[in-house]
């Protein structure tokens, strides 16, 4: 039995307090670095402007002229995502073929482990893919906006580059994760690498590749909206403009359109995956 005086106290209180104090001490400089100041939001003039802006969200703008513009921007967003994915696929597939270990001929006689020189050939491709996908897509978009000008071209190129990096890596991993025996049998029977890929690896990998690509397409739609904020076309660019003009109704209808678009893309991608996977 616990004595009443002992049961009143939390036995773990001291270590918990210590962890809390330690965490606070670590986060304290962060608080000043991030200049966190919630009171700005409720500050007189600021709050007034914001209240006017927010109250203009209802009703969402729905004049015919604006809706035509909205439709144009939405189609542009969809087109950016689709065209970007198509270009990304065109880059990713050859890169994945070069980066994967599944088609290594030197690995056949070495128990699945490629020779050092074949590593030396694969690593540059892998490194390229890492760099392509590690720089965030919106940074690529910003760079391309400066290089090719405002508009959807920058968005397409940014998606193509980032997603080529992601798809290339994931495809290479999918090729390595399927049953290697068919490809090895083909290779050791004298098939070329491409033949071994098409008849030994691809049939097993198709459904997984399709499902990942469709998922990425869905991500590309979201990304292309966001990239518009740096001037890469589509819905985001219009949203940025409307925000700068404090046109609340327009921002509201664009946010609603965005939500609808994401929802539809989610549905479509689920449908496609269910149909093919």
């Amino acid at each position, binding site marked *: 039995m616990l004595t009443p005086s002992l049961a009143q106290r939390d036995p773990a209180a001291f270590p918990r307090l210590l962890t809390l104090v330690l965490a606070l001490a670590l986060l304290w400089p962060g608080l000043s670095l991030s200049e966190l100041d919630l009171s700005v939001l409720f500050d007189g003039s600021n709050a007034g402007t914001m209240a006017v802006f927010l109250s203009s969200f209802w009703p969402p703008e729905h004049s015919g002229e604006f809706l035509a513009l909205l439709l144009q921007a939405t189609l542009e967003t969809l087109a950016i995502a*689709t065209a970007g994915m198509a270009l990304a696929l065109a880059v990713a597939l050859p890169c994945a073929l070069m980066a994967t270990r599944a088609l290594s001929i030197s690995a056949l006689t070495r128990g699945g482990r490629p020779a050092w020189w074949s590593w030396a050939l694969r690593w540059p491709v892998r490194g390229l893919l890492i760099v392509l996908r*590690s720089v965030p897509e919106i940074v690529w978009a910003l760079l391309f906006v400066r290089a090719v000008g405002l508009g959807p071209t920058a968005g397409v190129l940014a998606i193509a580059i980032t997603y080529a990096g992601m798809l290339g890596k994931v495809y290479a991993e999918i090729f390595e994760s399927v049953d290697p025996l068919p490809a090895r049998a083909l290779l050791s029977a004298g098939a070329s690498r491409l033949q071994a890929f098409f008849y030994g690896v691809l049939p097993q990998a198709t459904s997984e590749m399709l499902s990942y690509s469709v998922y990425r397409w869905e991500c590309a739609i979201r990304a292309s909206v966001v990239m518009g904020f740096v001037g890469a076309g589509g819905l985001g660019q219009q949203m940025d403009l409307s925000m700068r003009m404090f046109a609340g109704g327009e921002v509201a209808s664009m946010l609603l359109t965005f939500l609808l678009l994401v929802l539809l893309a989610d549905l479509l991608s689920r449908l496609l995956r269910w149909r093919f996977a």
Partner: protein
Amino acid sequence: MKMLSRLLAPIALIAAVIASFAFLQLEASALFSQQGLGQMADYAAGFMTPDLSTAHLRAIGYGALETLAMSAIGTLLAALLGLLLALPAANRFGAVAQAVSRLLLNALRAIPELVWAALMVLAAGLGPNAGTLALALHTAGVLGRLFAEALENAPAAPTEALRLAGSGRITAFFYGTLPAIWPQLVAYILYRWENNIRMASVLGFVGAGGLGQMLYMSLSLFQEAQASTVILAMLLMVLAVDMLSSWARQRWVRA
């Protein structure tokens, strides 16, 4: 007939791709012409010589710290707000509160960080404060939903035992429910923090502080050398976070 239905989807996909290129009127010929490529090469050449002067590196270090601080404080705020919203969303205060809090969580989560950042820059002015708030709002939606699920799946027996033994609601929550789901909550928070570090470095594009703002400034001033260093710093940060998190996962999370 079967052949047709098998071919339908690929044909539709190809048609969609062609329609996209046609709609955007991408001028590939202009882009990949001698002149276009030359311009691109000139532009890219500016990035080949990153500015590694001490003053600039110090500024980048400060920017990186600011980015880290934004992500950490933003995630912490989000965890607090998320937990506050997760309690009603896990049906602790009746059906009406549940519906309202779920709607709120969905709305917070559905709007991307960058859009929140653009809104917060309007509301709270330029600088890291806006970025922190934007991260906090979006992440609160994500964490709130995850927390609510964790709360719903938490075993009810310890809490009931405490309640039957005469403890208050709040004490029962802190000593009965929270310990059971705490490791899960911490895992979610750390996972989102990792995401937010990446996100915080680009929020600056709309004026919300951190490394992104430096990059945006130097690109606007056509200082390619300085911009190139900032991009390198971002790359390093992303790679470091990736490596650290995969190491931590292997070390502490048993599959």
